[in-house]
């Protein structure tokens, strides 16, 4: 029995090149499905990875209650001072609480492939502690801004996607000129921002308060202590979140949108591919009908014939799936793009074609191959021997 199965499978696979045109339909069809599926999910994965990398569990972000995003939040000086001196915050090397009150506003920059339409970019005014709170952030070109001066440092991602922010250039905001003096790299969402001294930013943008406070937590208990004490203070209405939770919360919407898009597109394409695969496999069975009838006449069973058709279909599906994943990898992996994030500003991120995605794509292609091969395989197993031989 087993030898029968393997014998037929080998014969069948060797004959695939004779039917290359219809086999190509399956391979190309599935390569298309898998490439689209993988590319779409690689986009969602890349976005998620960028934001996840931005957040630490030993750092908390505090915003005005019910704000959801820094853009919507605002707290006055008294509140941020109270927050900074709350229990649960770790002391810095200078003996002061390691916390940075930051102000976020939106500036517009023009995308590299655009002429005039501006895109929203986060401009973050920071206190000196901001750098100690984000050790992953390094100045990679030029120098840091000088406190008190209208100077900016720009994230790598901004530089990659938008024009006019190169070191040495000046940006005009609210009637005053800002000089770009350096570039920083943090490998996460902060790469999509412009940074400046918070006090200078406040003056320029006519604000007095801050959008958020970022604070280092003191040990494992730090978060709970900080949260409890801020909740108990009647002078404050704030939300306290671990920085990582804040950033992963922002990926939900995007993940869901891309997830829906990917499932709808993949489902429709997969159906189309199944119909195409059915067509090709029926054709393949028809082309082999004399061969199959001969095998049956000399004593081969129906099951090995069925298996051979299924294996052909699965093999072609596998090739198609691998090809599709390869196309997605070559075209899209590490492709840098940007889209609107929760703060209504651009988040620059790269597509990530991960091994997990490739496996999922190939599983999908095998399922399609199985669906497309099954009915033709049954027909093959039932080829009426006498008729087929006579027709041949």
């Amino acid at each position: 029995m087993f030898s029968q199965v393997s014998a037929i499978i080998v014969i069948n696979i060797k004959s695939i090149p004779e039917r290359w045109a219809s086999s190509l339909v399956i391979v190309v069809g599935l390569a298309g499905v898998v490439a689209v599926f993988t590319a779409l999910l690689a986009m969602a994965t890349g976005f998620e990875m960028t934001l996840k990398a931005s957040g630490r569990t030993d750092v908390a972000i505090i915003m005005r209650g019910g704000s959801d995003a820094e853009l919507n939040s605002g707290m006055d000086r008294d509140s941020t001072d109270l927050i900074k001196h709350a229990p649960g915050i770790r002391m810095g090397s200078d003996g002061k609480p390691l916390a940075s009150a930051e102000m976020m506003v939106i500036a517009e920059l023009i995308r590299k492939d655009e002429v005039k339409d501006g895109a929203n970019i986060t401009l973050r005014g920071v206190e000196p502690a901001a750098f100690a709170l984000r050790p992953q952030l390094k100045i990679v070109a030029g120098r840091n801004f000088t406190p008190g001066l209208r100077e900016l440092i720009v994230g790598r991602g901004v530089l990659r996607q938008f024009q006019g922010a190169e070191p040495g250039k000046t940006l005009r905001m609210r009637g005053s000129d800002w000089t770009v003096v350096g570039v920083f790299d943090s490998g996460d969402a902060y790469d999509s921002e412009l940074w400046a001294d918070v006090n200078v930013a406040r003056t320029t943008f006519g604000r007095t308060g801050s959008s958020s406070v970022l604070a280092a937590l003191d040990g494992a208990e730090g978060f709970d202590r900080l949260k409890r004490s801020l909740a108990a203070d009647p002078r404050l209405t704030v939300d306290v979140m671990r920085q990582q939770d804040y950033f992963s919360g922002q990926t939900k919407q995007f993940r869901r949108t891309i997830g829906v898009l990917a499932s709808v597109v993949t489902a429709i394409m997969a159906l189309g591919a199944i119909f195409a695969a059915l067509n090709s496999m029926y054709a393949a069975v028809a082309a082999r009908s004399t061969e199959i009838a001969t095998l049956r006449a000399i004593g081969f069973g129906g099951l090995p014939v069925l298996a051979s058709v299924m294996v052909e279909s699965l093999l072609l599906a596998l090739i198609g799936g691998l090809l599709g994943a390869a196309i997605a990898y070559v075209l899209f992996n590490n492709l840098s793009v940007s889209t609107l994030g929760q703060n209504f500003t651009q988040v620059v991120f790269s597509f990530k074609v991960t091994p997990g995605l490739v496996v999922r794509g190939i599983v999908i292609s095998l399922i399609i191959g199985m669906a497309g091969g099954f009915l033709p395989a049954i027909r093959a197993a039932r080829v009426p021997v006498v008729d087929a031989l006579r027709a041949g």
Partner: protein
Amino acid sequence: MTRTGFVIANMFRKKTRTVLTMLSIIMAFLLFGLLQSLSHIFNAGADFLGATRLVTQARVSFTQALPLSMVPKLEAVPGVARVAHSQWFGGVWQTNTQVFTFAVDPQRYHDVYPELVMPEEHWKAFADTRTAMIAGKQLADQYGWKVGQRIPLSSNIYPQKNGSKSWAFDLVGIYDGKDENWKKQTNAAFINHDYFDEANQVGKGRTNFYILKLAAGSNAEAVGKTIDAMFENSPDETKTQTEKEFNLSFIKQIGDIGLIVRWILFAVFFTLLLVVGNTMAQSVRERVPELAVLKTLGFSDRSVLGFVLAEALVLCLVGGTVGLALATVLGGMVGKATGGRFQLPVDAFVWSVGFAAILLMSIAVGLLPALRARRLNIVDALSAH
């Protein structure tokens, strides 16, 4: 048998194959319709918006509010007929659903947007009631809001004087659009700016956008330049665009998604071309002897070519039409399900692009087999069997 009958009969020669090919084409055009509609949104934006209105925002970003003291200055600019303003409220319905809510001056907004229709007494109620709110028809339908109800709405930005972010407004009217395009723009709610300004805790006397209605015959670009020059070098520098440009730049913020969609379309089409092309080629291969017989009977080379091309056209036309029809239905369902916040209209434009694609595809997949059928040598074809 007529020629048409012959083409149709040929298609049913192998029912399974025709049906399966047809289904592939239907799926492809279903996807084509939906994606083309999506792509159209990114590329064209709102075509129906003319250049009769300008939008003025802070140059640095529209999230930076402009002072209301600019109203008389803007009104004094030659060519500006009426000035309305609109402030983003950050409305949140129930736990976490964002509602596009803007604080406006009711009378000014009504004057600048005659396309939004509502009985005059409702407009009057909106202007006269401090805590009034009006909602678009799509929005009201989605949440079952009725005129006379008090709508609780929180703001994720603005606390009231007492520190609470829970607001409530009296729904005094439901507006609709004057035509098909504007009916799709009825997914926002408007509240009274006077009340908002008085009750909210932070940032008085400011607004995110000015919408300027232009006087007849005035030059939009020149007016925009005059305005931006007026505020140059002030802390409130402005950027003035036509309403259409403003909408487009807003959509473009979403970024490179349009590009990705085009890539998918390309992949789908390439795949489809191969699938259908191969089926056609196969069908002609199998019929070589029949075609030879036709030629023997005296059918010209050209009519044999015509038969094969016609078959490809019928296959693509039927499959494509059904696919586009399905896309229209599905796109409409998406719009309904999201209360108009996400529109996927498979409209006349998408259909015309779709038909162009159907024609192109018929030729692409039919031509090679058809040429082969035309070149067929009778003697060789018959003797091979």
